[in-house]
């Protein structure tokens, strides 16, 4: 396997200890769980997505465990502004606040609450199962550009997380770039559903949900590959990553760093484990690897 030379990573303005970032919405709800993941070897962490009003999200079931992935519809539960309390203890750590809203103004307002406490922002323009939020607005290039600009105007590194549930991903990526994104993150979950044949009902309380984990890895690789050819800013790859080999594959597709979500469930120590395999003194320079499959 290819090994990378270890070293810190600067990703769209965020300084990280390695290429492995905790994905939004996974153990990102409390200050102490974020700290736990950082201590377990993540190079940086994205928080749970925080919005303009506190919410408990969708009624359950919120998750279906599949053989090769996870289907979830949390519905963006979040404590809203109160999340500042959680962030207080994390100041100075490589923590990126994921934010969402229904309008550019809301995005900016939410982000501004945390501007002194985080290393950067990630716009959730991509949650596939929240009415009026996330992918509901992340599929329109104009809105994506405006929301990005609103958050980027705060002067912190601004990542934009994209949904794969669009006809033309590069167009959305370019809109984010125009709005001032310092990196794009691909991808959020793929819109999906499972039905209980016994109860004759969709299993998820919200009926629709988002697919993550192994099943979507080839889709995420494709999205990163497409974006690498269409934007100038760095691409962060996410979707189904569980091994060091997956990280290398995603980087060859064009990812300057990766995020890991579903795989953390079975093993919060996964960051340290992957890093242990991924890095070796004398290894290959990441620059040589990122995007090298574009030949």
């Amino acid at each position: 396997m290819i090994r990378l030379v270890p070293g810190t990573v600067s990703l769209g303005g965020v300084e990280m200890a390695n290429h492995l970032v905790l994905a939004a919405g996974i153990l990102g709800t409390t200050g102490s769980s974020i700290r736990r993941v950082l201590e377990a070897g993540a190079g940086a962490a994205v928080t749970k997505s925080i919005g303009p009003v506190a919410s408990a999200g969708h009624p359950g079931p919120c998750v279906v465990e599949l053989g090769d992935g996870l289907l979830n519809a949390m519905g963006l539960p979040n404590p809203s502004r109160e999340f500042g309390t959680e962030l207080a203890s994390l100041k100075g750590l490589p923590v990126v606040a994921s934010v969402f809203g229904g309008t550019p103004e809301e995005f900016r307002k939410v982000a501004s609450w945390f501007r002194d406490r985080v290393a950067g922002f990630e716009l959730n323009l991509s949650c596939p199962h929240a009415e009026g939020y996330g992918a509901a607005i992340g599929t329109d290039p104009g809105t994506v550009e405006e929301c990005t600009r609103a958050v980027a105007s705060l002067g912190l590194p601004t990542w934009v997380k994209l949904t794969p549930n669009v006809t033309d991903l590069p167009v959305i990526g370019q809109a984010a770039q125009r709005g001032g994104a310092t990196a794009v993150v691909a991808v959020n979950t793929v819109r999906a559903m499972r039905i209980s044949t016994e109860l004759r009902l969709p299993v998820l309380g919200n009926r629709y949900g988002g697919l993550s984990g192994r099943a979507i890895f080839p889709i995420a690789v494709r999205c990163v590959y497409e974006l690498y050819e269409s934007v100038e800013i760095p691409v962060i790859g996410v979707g189904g990553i569980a091994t060091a080999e997956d990280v290398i594959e995603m980087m060859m597709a064009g990812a300057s760093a990766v995020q890991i979500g579903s795989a953390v469930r079975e093993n919060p120590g996964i960051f340290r484990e992957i890093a242990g395999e991924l890095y070796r003194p004398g290894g290959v320079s990441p620059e040589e690897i990122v995007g090298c499959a574009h030949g």
Partner: protein
Amino acid sequence: MGDRMPLVMEITDVVTETPRIRTLFFSDSIPFSPGQFVMVWVPGVDEIPMALSSPRSISVLPVGDATRTLCAMREGDRIGIRGPFGNGFRVQGQTLAVAGGIGTAPLLPLALGGKVTTFLLGAATAPELAFRAPLSCATTLHVATDDGSEGHHGMVTALLDELVLEVYDHICVCGPEPMMHRVLQVLAEKGLEGRGQFSLHRYMKCGIGVCGSCSIDPSGQRVCREGPVFTGDQLLDSELGRYVRDGSGVRRRFD
């Protein structure tokens, strides 16, 4: 590994344990260790965590929408079950159990499995003392009620003073948070916190360790995955007895 869709089960029997608590028996047995829980899908309402009170039952106290719907269910109604999840109690030798109210549910199968030497059972009032009969057969049972209508008048924790705690290898606890916090204090005073096993109730959305809504401070441990049972030493100086987070993640203090 195949898909793990919720297992849909029929309610075969509903038993009235106390004026408020119902035990719902369902069609299939679930292999589990006492203290483990399942996520119970109440169709059209919600999905909530519930301890297994036996391999084929849950025992429910109605506190809100989902639990009230469950308590109103009858034979033939159907629920979905995911799990079992979590770690459960790990005991050997002499074990003391301390239970308050619906917190008795996860301790019941431990006691009926012959693993509990002494059982301290508390409730607000005599009729709410759940599972009294089976517990008195399987263990040495001591009872307390807040209103003094039976047993000791006062908190179940007061019964601790009458025991020589050092003789117990494990002290397993489940009940209202202030009660659990008090037990931890008592154990800590005697340096016995390492023998305590506390089954925590926290807001759970996924039940499988991915969402983080059940994380406790300051360790960041997930109640659904590393818990729900934690030893006392893991909980010293923790959020236990101070606050819980609600469904949105906002902290709610105990007063």
